């Protein structure tokens, strides 16, 4: 094994290579588990999670996201680390990972470790190295912060079990929404191989719940649950297919999160969508919005999309889109509607819906009260009444509302998108452009 690791590579170079190789993994959340420090080492976890910095792409940096090694025996078409790519290779040693994590953590740079890996020799071999690293971190260094680890498909279930007791969250990447897509993109991976560890982790968590009910101090297995991710826009799947897959993952595999990753053609593959138009960020954004609707707003995938209308409206968000197509439910009287209906009003979120329900016990609410509670009136005004009155004289008419909502968007006063509305990333002259212009 030593022969594969160039001995002269410094930690600095390794970090550069292995952080670079891990950056396409989306998940960086440190949420879901809540643990106080026990006084024997450093670290605790907060249920809400903590971001510590934000990278130039605006994504949060919460965990030290690295690969253990970027050596890989597989040859997936979307992956920068595939066997046939000529990229610099490196591997950490368990001790290097431990000391980086500990020293970053005490300086409040990170919330914990995200450890993934390419496949070195075999899934078992790689998973064993990962387990060894986590074991060292938890026992020798007494690290009590957050750990997110990848379960390597095809690894021995006993190793995955072991990792689950050391980590807060585990994930297995689904990679593609459909089994055919996976076969096309990753010839060495099989759907069944991915679902197997996913099921094992789900069962492990369920069993652990039972143990914890009986024995409060039983060791915890993946306290923060499991997540997965799918690549969006590499193959022609519809939003409906993707969202249905996500829904069944939530229902049948009790996942905490499904992440969507706009496809970036890192390998310059001619048969896949090109990189010039940029990754499909708006589509990814719409999928995340819909994902939130599934998890917190009690929507079902087939309410938002159907076989006949399989893709999201790029002009308005999925919730407003649903509302204008179901105007028979509106306008909603804010002072009397039930919580579930409040959640379905565009411009009203989980927090403001809760505040409305709590505040209206004290008496009737006005539009000013709603504004103070965080309701986005410019979107909600078409769908609500307060004490029987609407805010302005507006029509309950699909075309009229859509026209107004999209007009606001175009004027830059409507929906706040994290990027330009043509779906490309917000781009100004950047460091890289400066380099290109001057060089």
């Amino acid at each position, binding site marked *: 094994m030593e022969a594969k690791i160039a001995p002269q590579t410094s930690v600095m170079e390794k970090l550069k290579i292995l952080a670079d190789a891990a950056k396409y993994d989306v998940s960086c959340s440190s949420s879901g588990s809540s643990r106080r420090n026990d006084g024997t080492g450093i670290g605790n976890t907060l249920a809400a999670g903590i971001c510590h*910095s934000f990278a*130039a792409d605006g994504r949060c940096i919460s965990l030290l996201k690295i690969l253990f090694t970027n050596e890989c025996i597989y040859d997936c078409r979307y992956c920068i680390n595939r066997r046939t790519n000529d990229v610099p290779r490196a591997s950490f040693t368990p001790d290097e990972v431990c000391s980086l994590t500990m020293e970053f953590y005490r*300086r*409040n740079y990170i919330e914990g470790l995200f450890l993934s890996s390419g496949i070195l020799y075999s899934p078992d071999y790689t998973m064993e190295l990962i387990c060894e690293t986590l074991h060292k971190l938890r026992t020798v260094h007494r690290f009590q912060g957050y750990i997110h680890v990848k379960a390597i498909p095809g690894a021995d279930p006993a190793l995955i079990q072991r990792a689950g007791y050391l980590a807060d969250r585990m994930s297995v990447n689904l990679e593609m929404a459909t089994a055919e897509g996976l076969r096309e993109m990753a010839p060495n991976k099989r759907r069944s191989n991915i679902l197997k560890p996913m099921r094992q982790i789900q069962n492990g968590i369920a069993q652990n719940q039972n143990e914890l009910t009986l024995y409060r101090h039983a060791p915890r297995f993946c306290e923060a649950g499991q997540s997965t991710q799918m690549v969006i826009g590499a193959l022609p799947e519809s939003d409906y297919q993707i969202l249905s897959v996500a829904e069944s993952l939530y229902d049948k595999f009790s996942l905490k999160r499904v992440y969507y990753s706009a496809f970036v053609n890192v390998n310059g593959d001619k048969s896949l969508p090109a990189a010039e138009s940029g990754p499909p960020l708006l589509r990814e954004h719409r999928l995340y919005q819909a994902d939130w609707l599934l998890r917190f707003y009690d929507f079902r995938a087939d309410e938002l999309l159907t076989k006949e209308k399989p893709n999201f409206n790029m002009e308005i968000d999925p919730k407003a889109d649903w509302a204008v197509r179901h105007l028979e439910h509106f306008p909603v009287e804010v002072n009397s509607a039930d919580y579930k209906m409040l959640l379905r009003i565009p411009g009203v979120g989980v927090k403001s819906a809760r505040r409305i329900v709590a*505040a209206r016990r004290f*008496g009737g609410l006005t539009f000013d009260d709603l504004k103070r509670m965080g309701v986005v009136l410019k979107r909600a005004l078409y769908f609500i009444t307060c004490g029987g009155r609407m805010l302005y004289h507006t029509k309950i008419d699909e075309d009229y509302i859509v026209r107004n909502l999209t007009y606001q968007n175009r004027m830059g006063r409507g929906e706040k998108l994290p*990027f330009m509305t043509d779906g490309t990333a917000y781009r100004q002259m950047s460091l890289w452009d400066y380099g290109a212009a001057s060089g």
Partner: protein
Amino acid sequence: MEEKYIICEDSLEGIFTAVYDAYALREGHEHIHIQVGEDENYRLFAVYLHSIADSGKTEKVIRTLKNRLGEEVYLTLCQAAASCEPDRGEAVYRTVVDGVTDRHGRRTMENLRNPYVARCFALARRTANEAHHEIEFLRFGELERGALYAVIGPENNVLPFVMPHFADRLSVENFVIRDEGRDLFGVHPAGRPWYLVSGLEEFTEENFAWSEGEECYRELFRLFCGTTGVRERENRKLQRQMFPLRFRDYAVEFAGGTEREP
């Protein structure tokens, strides 16, 4: 009836003492106001009373608030009192009146129809958000003898809300967090309770030397932050929204160069 303004010191103790004094006047609450610090312009026909912070009165107020309104509302009131807005005294006072006198108890903060409760809620939320930002963005450096040291420059007085988080997380470490603007220090000796002190000249960072490995880890983190972003998705606007500029002077990844904006 004439308006009465109670002028109090700018501290939690000052505000709570003023609340006590307002109740002690026994004149109802309609015409009584609390103001933190001296006013720039005096009002005509108003009476100004000065209240001097008193730990006995403060304790009584705290006990009443905890009993009648519950810990959660009490925490919200403390957060609102730690805000930097000039109307914080009035907002806290009116909210206490709404909760205690009108007997809304634990539900006090839910009565957002009352503009003062809504204001108090907004102030508290702002303080809590800034405290959370500091928990995210403050950076410790390691001093020569192994203790950790961080500097923050918050708008609101968030240090008392930041300390418990780190005292739990870094229970085995010695660390100090310094609030630059208020000259306030949060000190945590390893394995012991934390405390706040002010005016310690010898505790400022000029008097300390960083440890040997410190610069190396800063450099490693800068490298990590520069590497982990996806170039095809570059989005400086979003980054600025998530990591406001005013926090960046204190964060090693922005202070050193690689992550600095063009």
